[in-house]
């Protein structure tokens, strides 16, 4: 499999000397994101697919649910798994069936940010304690890679989780009926908060910090700090990769800048979800199902 060629020395030197003059190659300010596009493809009764584009980076997240038996040691909780297998679609260097460094990092960060921070209330997925629960599965498909994969994947996952609806269930004693989407209005997942990842790349030992790095900038940076927090400024996790040290004040600056971006992402997700709801709800099914007459 071909390796991703490292940028040439000239390219690196050019990028760094531009950065030292506070100029990025695509003329953005250091703390600006590329244009973000979030859409929910699919027909009127398809839920849980989110397509995120940040510049040329493109990630598709898809949520699916099925009924399974819960883990024996967690009888009152449902199962939530995140799968992010990278395919050669985004980069020929990623081979099928062999874990790449990027893949391990991505899955670990998403796991920490979303699963371990309790963003999804797994207890609400329980149907019959110890016997039946929902298994929510999130598949992350990286379609195009031009840097900042972590932020894009996290945004796509949160948006897809907020958009997803699981089938409704009814319990009579031991008997459980799962209603298909066509029969009963499906239910939203209960989310406790919505954390987002913000990656800050640093250069020159922390002197230059920038957000939303492109692939070239990622190849030239000394390290990265990934802060995940929700819109209330509660930090869920913090990770620093790369060798060069970053001082405490630098980290505080990262966190402060991240909060602003998280608020921006959160607003974006809310706006798009509302737009999508308006598009889907043509007064159709809910109007038909309503029992009351218009007198």
């Amino acid at each position, binding site marked *: *499999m*071909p390796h991703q060629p490292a940028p040439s020395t000239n390219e690196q030197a050019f990028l760094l000397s531009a950065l030292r003059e506070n100029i990025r190659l695509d003329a953005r300010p250091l703390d600006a994101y590329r244009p973000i596009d979030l859409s929910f*493809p*699919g*027909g009127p*009764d*398809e839920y849980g*697919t989110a397509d995120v584009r940040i510049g*040329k980076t*493109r990630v*598709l997240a*898809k*949520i*699916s649910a099925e009924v399974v038996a819960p883990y024996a040691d967690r009888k009152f909780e449902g199962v939530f798994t995140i*799968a992010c*297998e990278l*395919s*050669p*679609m*985004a*980069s*020929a260097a990623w081979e*099928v069936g062999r874990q790449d460094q990027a893949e391990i990092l991505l899955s670990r960060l998403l796991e920490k940010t979303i699963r371990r921070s309790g963003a999804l209330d797994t207890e609400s997925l329980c149907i019959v304690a110890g016997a039946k629960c929902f298994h929510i*599965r999130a*598949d992350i*498909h990286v*379609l*195009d*890679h*031009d840097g900042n994969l972590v932020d894009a994947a996290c945004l796509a996952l949160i948006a897809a989780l907020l958009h997803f609806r699981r089938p409704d269930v009814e319990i009579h004693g031991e008997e459980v009926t799962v209603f298909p*989407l066509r029969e009963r209005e499906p239910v939203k997942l209960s989310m406790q908060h919505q954390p987002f990842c913000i990656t800050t790349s640093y250069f020159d030992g922390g002197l230059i910090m920038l957000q939303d790095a492109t692939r070239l900038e990622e190849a030239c940076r000394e390290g990265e700090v990934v802060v995940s927090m929700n819109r209330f400024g509660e930090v869920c996790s913090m990770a620093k990769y790369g060798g060069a040290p970053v001082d405490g004040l630098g980290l505080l600056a990262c966190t402060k800048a991240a909060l602003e971006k998280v608020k921006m992402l959160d607003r974006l997700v809310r706006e798009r979800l509302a737009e999508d709801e308006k598009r889907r709800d043509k007064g159709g099914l809910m109007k038909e199902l309503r029992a009351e007459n218009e007198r």
Partner: protein
Amino acid sequence: MGPDISHHPLAGADGSATISSNLYSVLAAVNGPIEVQRRDELPEEAAIEVNIRPASGVGGPRERWLESVVTAVLRSVLLVHMHPRTLIQVTLQLTTGPTLKLKNATRDISVLPSLVNAAFLALVDGGLPLQSTVTAVLLAVSGEEVISIDPAEKELAGCKSVHALAYTQHGDLLLNESAGNFNLEVWEEVADRAEKACVAAVALASEDDEMANGTAEAAPWLRRELEEKARDAVAWRDHT
């Protein structure tokens, strides 16, 4: 008529295309010719690697089988001997599928035409040397022996047999996979209809034909797409 197609949706891959028919949406990406691993290297031709990724879940034996079928079709379309000791890597990502629960065999067959068409369009977009044009169609035979081309989900759920066939522009058969209960007579009729539909998809549309039968299956959708793409590719010449 024909499926919805968009060319080159991805920036990273050499060639890419999305195709959405009434059943499936497939995103195809092609990288190639690229460096090949020693164990896959073929001394006289390019190796073809097809990866099929379902929308949710990981691929299993079903995907491996679909991959082998698609690889065989692509091998007879690509001029593999032009790039010996290289690799042509095709990734097919399913994005949406039917919502109704179909029989396993029916589901396997019904996805094949979308996969083949998507892979072919991505190969064209990637500019890989091809020896022919290929079009695949899906046909369903209902209980009353009525053959429908590009069946809807409901027809597929209640059909007696499904057939996926692919033909070149000259009407040479490249893919023949069927499932269900049928006899040779039925298959021959199916193959006949499929060949007509496939050849029509890339046929030169004369004005008389379009006037005479504006039917859905006779529309040269693939030719129109390819011509438009070729026109766009040379548009810069008109501006200079």
